[in-house]
């Protein structure tokens, strides 16, 4: 089984072609050009490099959120377009689960976090039991203060130390250093960011669990309603956020 994996959820744009147990090609760029300009040329470049016929792909995996709304949609529309054109399934990989796979196999407490603005981060808390990814707290938007409390409690309870990664950890580095009571490591640059090979690793696990979608079904998981919906819900408390969209 051969898959194309994509992550354009944050600053890096990343694409990989993978078989089970093997990354055939990977291309990651962290630059000011938009994902719209970089992502498909990168996919095309790695495909040419390995003589890949797009029709030989069995599935497309995409980091489905959280992330920049526009970045997520570029990745998702790319995956959906390939899925539609080749009639292949999609694998929606939660962005932060893929990032946790940068530390595949680690029994430390893994906390990938992305800057979510509005004094929040998108964060999830994970750990590996051998090859199994345990989701200790599912990815969600959270205030950094609340996240630190949760991490401190969890570290005290389990006696395990932490690995922090993602651009949220960069943004809140000094706050984390001052307030974490447990032992921790900040990820080195080669393991700190989103990368498509990690999306692929998580995708193969999800495929084994039967968690695939059709290209039509797939939509990004923003973990946040739009600002217009939020403002409207605040004005009219009877409206639950998100209900306006229906």
């Amino acid at each position, binding site marked *: 089984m051969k898959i194309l994996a994509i992550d354009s959820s944050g600053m890096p744009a990343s694409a990989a072609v993978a078989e089970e147990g093997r990354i055939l090609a990977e291309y990651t760029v962290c630059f000011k050009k938009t994902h719209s300009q970089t992502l498909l*040329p990168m996919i095309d470049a790695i495909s040419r490099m390995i003589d890949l016929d797009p029709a030989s792909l069995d599935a497309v995996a995409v980091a489905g959120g959280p992330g920049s709304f526009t970045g997520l949609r570029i990745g998702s529309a790319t995956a959906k377009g390939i899925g539609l054109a080749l009639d292949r399934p999609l694998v929606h990989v939660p962005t932060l689960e893929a990032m946790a796979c940068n530390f595949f196999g680690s029994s430390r407490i893994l906390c990938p976090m992305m800057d979510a603005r509005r004094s929040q981060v998108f964060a999830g808390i994970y750990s590996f039991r051998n090859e199994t990814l345990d989701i200790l707290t599912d990815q969600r938007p959270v205030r950094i203060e609340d996240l630190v409390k949760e991490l401190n409690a969890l570290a005290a309870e389990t006696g395990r130390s932490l690995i922090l990664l993602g651009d949220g950890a960069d943004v809140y580095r000094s706050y984390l250093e001052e307030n974490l009571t447990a032992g921790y490591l900040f990820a080195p640059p080669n393991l700190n960011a989103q990368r498509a090979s990690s999306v692929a690793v998580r995708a193969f696990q999800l495929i084994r669990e039967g968690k695939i979608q059709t290209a039509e079904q797939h939509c990004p998981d923003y973990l946040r309603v739009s600002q217009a919906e939020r403002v409207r819900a605040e004005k009219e408390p009877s409206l639950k956020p998100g209900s306006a969209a229906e």
Partner: protein
Amino acid sequence: MDKDVRILAIESSCDETAAAVVVNGREVLSNIISSQIDIHTLYGGVVPEIASRKHIERINQVIREALTAAGVTLDDIDAVGVTYGPGLVGALLVGVAEAKAIAWARQLPLIGVHHIEGHISANYIEHRELEPPFGCLVVSGGHTHLVRVRDYGEYEILGRTCDDAAGEAFDKVARAIGLGYPGGPKIDRVSREGDPSAIDFPRGKVRGSEYDFSFSGLKSAVLNYLNECRMKGIPVRTADVAASFQKAVVDVLVEHSMHAVEEYGFREFAIAGGVASNSALRLAMEEACAKKGISFYRPSPVLCTDNAAMIGAAAYYEYRKGIRSDYSLNAIPNLQLGER
């Protein structure tokens, strides 16, 4: 051309998710439009982030439907055309990324299309005899352009709005007189009951540029009129305000267009864009063109609104010229007409 060219076209520049299959730029095999108007009506106008979210939810279904309705598969498609500007950047990006991915996966040529060139090209679909050169007035919620179409894909902008687009003025005035969103069709309907000469609203002029338009002064005049009525306790006749406002817009559009007809000697004149559905504009343009003894063209309402068939028509003429976009094609929200 010996072989028919079938183009799959995609349009997502504002609040319609659309896909179409068009043969040789003129024959529409399918034209699917999924409108988001209901949700944006809740907010009194198009919310860009919500529009982008709706596009990605619907785009695959709309494309599938377009292929199915056309009775073709991607095996029958020769190229993919997509709107890449102008428009809402987040909305455009969904269509652009999807089109690029389909083109890559099927190794098909990709053609980025200018949204306004699409609107102009909508006229090719129902009027097989229409060929450049001709004059065209493009009027919609986001655009007001008086264009000289020199040849397929060759455009010269003679005039444009300096402030509000014509359709935008309709929306704003409709809101002010309590008709709500979208303003164009509502003002059109209410105006039929009103007297277009009841109130003498100003006809906007732009000093030093005879073909340019200005509608913000007119909009302010309507607001001032309403204010004055309120202060003096005079009851407002909504239908008269709507009809008088509409007349003021139409007069200016027709006057500038006919001026261009004289100066450039157009034998054919066309209108395009959402506001080209306006019945008063259609009638006035028809009469003015008849008086000049020239042919007048307008698309049916379904081809005036944002749609992908018009993108397929424009893409075909680009395709014929050998124009291709590469995979770095980006959405350009303020793309200028004639720019590549």
